[in-house]
């Protein structure tokens, strides 16, 4: 009986974690892994393959942070979360960082006890319609049915848009984005509303992708980025600057392939970023090679983008807004000095 109860005690202890109040950085270092909240499955952003390996733009944020903090991009513990539980999971301390295509809004930033640490993808709500309908603009959609994923900010955005334009619509909501695609494909609704990033993924999934077009209208701003808990500025800074380092890396032409070389032979800006000059890492409470590790192991923003959602992926999303500021986009990293 004694043995039994000790087994029970041991068993129960496994699930319980009491995090020290010291700070996320110490917790992560002590644990040796980064706990990262991701989506249960979102093509190009966070997806698992047959071997159980996670990949995607959202996932790469976590990998970069793990590389910067722990020196190893694979030391990430992925926690798939639904839209409903994502903030609770972060607030309760179950995850260290939430990187789950979450739109940066005023309300979320100010009232939930959270901080958004940057933007990794400038998104917006868009429409996809069947080519057959011959619709050229969203303003022609009066009286149509809309396929929407339930419980997203899209649900509100579309209601606002239609009210503003004095049009009617009928919302057909689905639980997952895959189901919205099925609904759209079968003709249950006339158009599909979603973040543009998803529209491309959903379009690829159609039996005949060329039969659908994405309309030019973008009816809302949806900047997506990683989120951390409030009142932990050390950790907030780390995540913020890891995101920036990846963007700066692209700007400075530092890639996973040439980082090693540039660390020795690069210009001062590159050297500062890669830690061979200056003390940027130290100021964050990390080792000097924090950004070097992140870029060599995960790649700069461009590499990550093209690999996951861009030209090297099945989604083939063009950079658009998400290009560097000097190339027609709005991606702009604060100065790395």
């Amino acid at each position, binding site marked *: 009986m004694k043995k039994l109860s000790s087994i029970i005690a041991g068993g129960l202890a496994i699930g319980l974690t009491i995090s020290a109040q010291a700070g996320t950085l110490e917790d992560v270092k002590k644990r040796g892994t980064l706990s990262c909240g991701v989506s249960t499955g979102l093509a190009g952003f966070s997806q698992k393959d047959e071997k159980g390996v996670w990949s995607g733009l959202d996932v790469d944020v976590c990998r970069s942070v793990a590389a910067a903090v722990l020196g190893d991009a694979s030391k990430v513990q992925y926690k798939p979360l639904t839209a409903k539980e994502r903030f*609770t999971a972060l607030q309760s301390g179950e995850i260290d960082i939430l990187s789950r295509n979450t739109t940066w809004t005023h309300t979320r930033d100010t009232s939930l006890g959270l901080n958004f640490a940057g933007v990794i993808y400038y998104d917006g709500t868009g429409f996809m319609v069947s080519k057959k309908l011959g619709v050229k603009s969203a303003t022609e959609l*009066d009286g*149509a049915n809309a396929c929407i994923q339930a419980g997203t900010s899209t649900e509100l955005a579309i*209601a606002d848009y239609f009210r503003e334009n004095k049009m009617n*619509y009928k919302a057909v*909501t689905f639980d997952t984005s895959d189901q919205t695609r099925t609904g759209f494909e079968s*003709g*249950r609704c006339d158009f599909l509303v979603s973040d543009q990033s998803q529209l491309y993924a959903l379009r690829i999934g159609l039996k005949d992708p060329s039969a659908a077009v994405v309309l030019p209208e973008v009816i809302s701003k949806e900047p997506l980025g990683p989120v951390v808990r409030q009142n932990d500025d050390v950790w907030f800074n780390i995540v913020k600057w890891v995101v920036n380092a990846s963007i700066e890396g692209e700007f400075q032409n530092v890639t996973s392939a040439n980082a090693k070389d540039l660390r020795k032979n690069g210009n001062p800006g590159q050297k500062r970023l890669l830690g061979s000059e200056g003390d940027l890492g130290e100021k964050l409470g990390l080792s000097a090679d924090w950004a070097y590790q992140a870029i060599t192991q995960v790649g700069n923003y461009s590499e990550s983008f093209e690999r996951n959602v861009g030209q090297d992926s099945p989604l083939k999303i063009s950079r658009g807004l998400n290009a560097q500021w000097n190339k027609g986009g709005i991606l702009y990293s604060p100065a790395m000095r």
Partner: protein
Amino acid sequence: MFYQKTIEQIKTDTRPSSAGAKAFYNNPKYRGWIYQSLLLIFLIAFFYSIISNTLSNMAAQGIKSGFGFMTTSAGFDVLMSLIPFETTDSYTKVFIIGILNTILVSIIGVICSTMLGFIFGIAYFSRNWLIKKISIIYVETFRNIPVILQVLFWYTAVLTTLPSTRDSLSIGEAFFLNIRGLYIPRLIDEPKSFVVYIAIVIAIVAIFFLRRWARKRQDLTGEQFPLIWSSLGILLGLPLLALFIAGVPFHFEYPELKGFNFQGGINVIPELMALAIAMSIYTGAFIAEAVRAGIQSVPHGQTEAARSIGLKERKIMSLIIVPQAMRVITPMLNSEYQSLVKNTTIATAIGYPELFTVFAGSALNQVGQAIEMMFMSLAIYFALNMMISFIMNQFNKRVAITTR
């Protein structure tokens, strides 16, 4: 004296062994109170810690509390509602729409699953080998597959088999069936239409009296009256007569294809169809099993005895088998209906806007007050289940009295 008082308790609770009965903690009465006090202390501590933790967590996370949100505007659209709804309407209205939609699909589910269950339950006893096998396959297939898969399956099946809006299947220009659902004409009242409604009421009352008259007549003369057919005749005939006397005081609002969708008429959305089909088939399998068990619980000798006094097969069923089987079936029906109501929550997988999808789903995501909204939803499910339980218990009493 003392022992006499507590003898009931001793019998069912504790029986002290003769040794050690003196110590007060061995006294069953005190022991019971000790257990209960410990339980009470535990519960107080438990709830106190939960409530204080929750409050401090909510404060830290900036979660509001209270029911203020009920009056604010929802801001999103609901696919289907039995009452008029605008995106600017309040969450209270969303809540009511959710309840109504839950009740709607539950009622459809209860009726259809009962029909399916009885048909397949009785089919098990068919002399036709194929029918019997189909009954077995039906029960064993559908009750052993998680209902959520069945909902997804039927939804896919419904969506893939129905034609697009432009190629709707139609009967005349009144009934249309397409991927957006079933469109039927809506009946619009005119001033004189009350005549028809009165005729319907009269017909129902008339049937009630006809039944009594027919029973009395049989008691007196032994002659049987074709009650079902004559009732049907009255139920259809009287309103029809009134309809023509009043000069057809109705007109129809026909569904019409305008732009993307049909406008007007009544629209039965495919989500409702898929959910109702899945619920009916899934629950029907359990009811069929209950019906089978109920009929099997009636010994074969009952049938033989009834045959030997010359009763016809149909009368044997209605006078001998069914009344006896019902006492086994009724309690099972009660729990199946209750789980049907609870299972409607999986509508969230296909987006039928019942309570859980629309209120504990969409609305909760926008408002974020999980505790209030979850408990409001749960209260509704409890209320619905209690209602079912009440009705079935009344029914069960009637069955039980005549069985003994």
